[in-house]
């Protein structure tokens, strides 16, 4: 069984219409899975569903063999999931270090080691550790956001468009870091606008259209698929 | 929109007032009715702002007080010696003040951004302020020196008192326009604090500008739109009438006077509700509600939301001003110290919420019902305390202590009712639609 396996997720926001329709998402241990698709396809909604921020009408979410469908987001954090939302993913008036500390809020052990690790992974975060996170540039903020999520030492890290609004150079750098994280054995589920680059580093790719799985394959295969290339990757 | 339960609730309200008549006295019943009608008009004003436009006004007391001021300025006879002593000078000073403010605003708008502009505007305001004070202070001193025990103020225009009602509306509308112009673009809780402030300032003006209102010395003996009891008691026709129905002419005269007021107030309320219902079911009213329900969408559709808000804010305040003028007329005196926010701002809010915001009938019902409670909670509690403590000795300290405190039951009750309604029936007694 996969490390994360979300199956047949169906549901929407509150009493509104269903946005997800029988959506399946699975991630293996230490693997990078990428979700791509047009705007409004339900990518973020799918991530929220996996993280328990949506009431699913149908479907289940299983993490590491345990059914977590009914758990709250906080409980899922305890189970080893970390989430970086697409927007508002930092505490702007708190220092960078405090952002990391808040990431470790549920931990009762000594988390200094983890902070050191985050600093090592993101030297920019270390440099700006005493500055308010709200004053940082877009790329630095995203690094802080990822760093915050890493503080719980998650086994599954979920990133919603981590490269939104950053320059191509910073984007490459962020992707490198994400690969590094995956190499430590952390599974990664990531939504990306920059489909081509993301699929290049992906072990597995999901193309979502209108809340449904349109294509699912390895990153490589999706990049090679002429249908996918034509409709979603711009030729 | 009239609902099936509307007439039932109003009938029940009538029963409550009849109850006061039967258990206490008809004089009391009419007192409750008259103030209830005035409260209902205040509630209509706030409901227009909150229920139809979502504007958060906590300066009601100020607009009500301006209505009160209008009665003095319209109906009292002018105090000629005071006018001779300093009237024109005081008016000139006020004109200068207005001129200075206009000049400052013009300078701000016309001049290019920068230090020079800030300094110029500052200079205009500061120099203007001192010129104003130099003209104003001696004028005020002269006016207030004229027979200060009885007069010491300029008086009014000596016009019929009923004219003060629309004038009160105009005063309040003017003040509301000024506030609205500056504060309506702000977030709702900033608007709330701004209106809270303006309310306090208007009350401060009424309390301290003795040349205008006699301040805490009050203006007594305001003219009445209805006959005086003493005149009635001497009138042949009235005495015959009372004799024919077998009533005591003294009680009868005071009831007759109150009935006259009630008739006037009812006329105003019916007129207002009719106008408001017409307006609110017109395209204008529908647009107002559309704006309240989705401001951003309406803005995107090219509607000038702030201008609409200004209209409705001014109209709502005007209604509160009219109510204020009516109340001062009924009281027969202006007592600036009596304008307390708890009584005239927050209580009116309880009326609107309990009645059902967004529904004019609800506002009227809420106004009358909450006023009834405000007046009757005390006697009812005293009655209850007396039953509960009937086992105690007549002079029991505990009992006296409780009876002393019972006055404040009304605050507790109002809070409790507001909280219960918000929690269990947030749309009020008569919900919108």
């Amino acid at each position, binding site marked *: 069984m996969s490390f994360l396996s979300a199956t047949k997720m169906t549901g929407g926001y509150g009493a509104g219409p269903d946005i997800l329709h029988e959506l399946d998402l699975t991630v293996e241990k230490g693997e990078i899975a990428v979700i791509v698709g047009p705007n409004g396809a339900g990518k973020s909604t799918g991530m929220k569903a996996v993280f328990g921020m949506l009431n699913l009408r149908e479907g289940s979410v299983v993490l590491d063999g345990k059914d977590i469908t009914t758990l709250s987001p906080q409980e899922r954090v305890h189970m080893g999931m970390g989430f970086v939302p697409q927007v508002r993913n930092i505490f702007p008036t*708190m220092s960078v270090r405090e952002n990391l500390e808040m990431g470790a809020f549920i931990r009762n052990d000594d988390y200094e080691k983890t902070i050191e690790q985050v600093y090592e992974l993101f030297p920019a975060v270390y440099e700006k550790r005493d500055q308010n996170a709200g004053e940082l540039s877009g790329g630095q903020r995203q690094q802080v956001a990822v760093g915050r999520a890493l503080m719980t030492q998650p086994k599954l890290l979920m990133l919603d468009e981590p490269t939104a609004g950053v320059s191509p150079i910073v984007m490459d750098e962020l992707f490198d870091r994400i690969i590094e994280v995956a190499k430590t054995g952390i599974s990664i589920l990531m939504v990306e606008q920059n489909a081509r680059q993301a699929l290049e580093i992906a072990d597995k790719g999901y193309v979502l259209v209108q809340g449904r799985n349109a294509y699912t394959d390895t990153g490589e295969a999706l990049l090679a698929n002429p249908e996918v290339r034509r409709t979603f990757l711009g030729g | 929109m009239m609902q099936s339960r509307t007439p039932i609730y109003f009938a029940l309200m009538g029963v409550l007032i009849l109850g006061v008549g039967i258990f206490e006295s008809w004089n009391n019943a009419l007192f409750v009715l008259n103030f209830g009608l005035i409260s209902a008009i205040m509630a209509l004003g706030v409901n227009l702002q909150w229920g139809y436009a979502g504007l958060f006004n906590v300066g009601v007391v100020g607009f009500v007080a301006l209505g009160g001021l209008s009665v003095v300025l319209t109906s009292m006879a002018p105090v000629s010696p005071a006018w001779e002593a300093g009237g024109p000078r005081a008016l000139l000073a006020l004109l200068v003040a207005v001129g200075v403010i206009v000049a400052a605003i013009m300078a701000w708008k016309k001049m290019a951004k920068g230090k020079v502009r800030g300094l110029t505007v500052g200079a205009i305001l500061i120099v203007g302020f001192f010129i104003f004070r130099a003209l104003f202070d001696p004028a005020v001193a002269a006016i207030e020196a004229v027979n200060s025990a009885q007069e010491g103020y300029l008086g009014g225009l000596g016009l019929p008192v009923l004219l003060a009602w629309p004038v009160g509306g105009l005063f309040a509308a003017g003040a509301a326009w000024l506030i609205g112009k500056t504060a309506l673009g702000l977030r709702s809780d900033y608007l709330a604090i701004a209106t*809270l402030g303006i309310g306090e300032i208007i009350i401060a003006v009424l309390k301290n500008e003795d040349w205008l209102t006699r301040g805490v010395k009050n203006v007594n003996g305001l003219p009445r739109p209805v006959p005086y009891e003493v005149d009635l008691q001497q009138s042949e026709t009235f005495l015959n009438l009372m004799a024919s129905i077998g009533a005591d002419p003294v009680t009868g005269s005071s009831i007759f006077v109150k009935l006259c007021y009630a008739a006037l107030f009812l006329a105003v309320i019916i007129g207002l509700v009719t106008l408001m219902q017409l307006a609110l079911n017109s395209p204008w009213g529908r647009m107002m509600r559309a704006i309240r329900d989705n401001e951003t969408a309406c803005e995107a559709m090219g509607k000038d939301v702030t201008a609409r808000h200004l209209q409705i804010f001014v109209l709502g305040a005007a209604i509160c001003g009219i109510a204020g003028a009516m109340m001062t007329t009924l009281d027969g005196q202006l007592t600036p110290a009596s304008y307390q926010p708890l009584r005239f701002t927050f209580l009116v809010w309880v009326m609107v919420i309990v009645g059902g915001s967004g529904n004019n009938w609800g506002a009227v019902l809420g106004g009358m019902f909450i006023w009834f409670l405000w007046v009757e909670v005390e006697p009812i509690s005293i009655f209850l305390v007396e039953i509960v403590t009937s086992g105690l000795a007549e002079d029991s300290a505990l009992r006296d202590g409780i009876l002393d405190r019972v006055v404040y039951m009304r605050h507790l009750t109002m809070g409790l009712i507001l909280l219960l309604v918000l929690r269990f029936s*947030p749309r009020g007694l008569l919900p919108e639609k």
Partner: protein
Amino acid sequence: MDFLNALVAFTNFVIVPASAYGAQLAIGALGVTLIYGILRFSNFAHGETMAFGTMVVLLVTGLFQQWGISLGPLPTALLALPFGIAAAAALVLFTDKTVYKFYRRVKAAPVMLVIVSMGVMFMMNGILRMIIGTDDRRFADGERFIIRARDFKEWTGLSEGLAIRTTQVLTIVVALITVALLFWFLNKTRTGKSMRAYSDNEDLALLSGINPERVVMITWLVVAALATVAGTLYGLDKSFKPFVYMQLLLPIFASAIVGGLGSPLGAIAGGFVIAFSEITLTYAFKKVVTYLGPDGWSPDGLVQLLSTDYKFAVSFAILIIVLLFKPTGLFKGKSV
């Protein structure tokens, strides 16, 4: 021209009282701003909360005085302060549980909570008056002055006296301690940081495993303490009268907004801006001007810009100016 005496007069009548008043407003505004930052509404019942805490302090002070317990030169009220804080905390926690909690659960609009707080205000107002009535009460005991005007004149040989009351110095000292404690709590402790995190970004705080109900509870506790301290300092400095505390709502809100709603530092700055403006603009400068002018000359009038009755107008004017030109306040507040 007598510069020294002018300075002493100005200090005596403006700087000293405004510093004390500013400290009181600042602590009051801190309470308002914390509620706004965490619970996201303007709490109209804050004045009443201040009055309630102060009332308990006053009653306990009375008891202590009967038992003969005192602090010597310091007001007995200081000893009673913890009791007032505890009582206010119990009251606000009870209110939160019975009233506000429901609206958080249904995610009510902030303006709804403001209206709810009006209901709470009414009820607290009633309870307060039923317990203690509406009279004006003084409860400051101990040494009245630290420096007496007469002594000051003797020491310095100046013709103008400087009087510093114990309550004024006490206000400043207690305010400093309170603010230091509060900032230490908010910036250095895990719980305090979690409060700031919640205020900054509620959703992310939830994702980080911060328990919102705990944050809210701690906030109310802190607010109860701040409100009681502010109310007691004000009451010691002037007197205790329930009605006055409701009137304080305007300058307190003005302080919080001028500083930037949600910003603790802003609340403190706002408190002093409002207090100094109010007192400077309503002070009759006749004495100071007389000292500064040529010998033997004195101005005709009081040289008072505004009558003290218009002090609310000052808070209001500053509030409006700040809102028009810098809507987020001097220190960047939140705009929910």
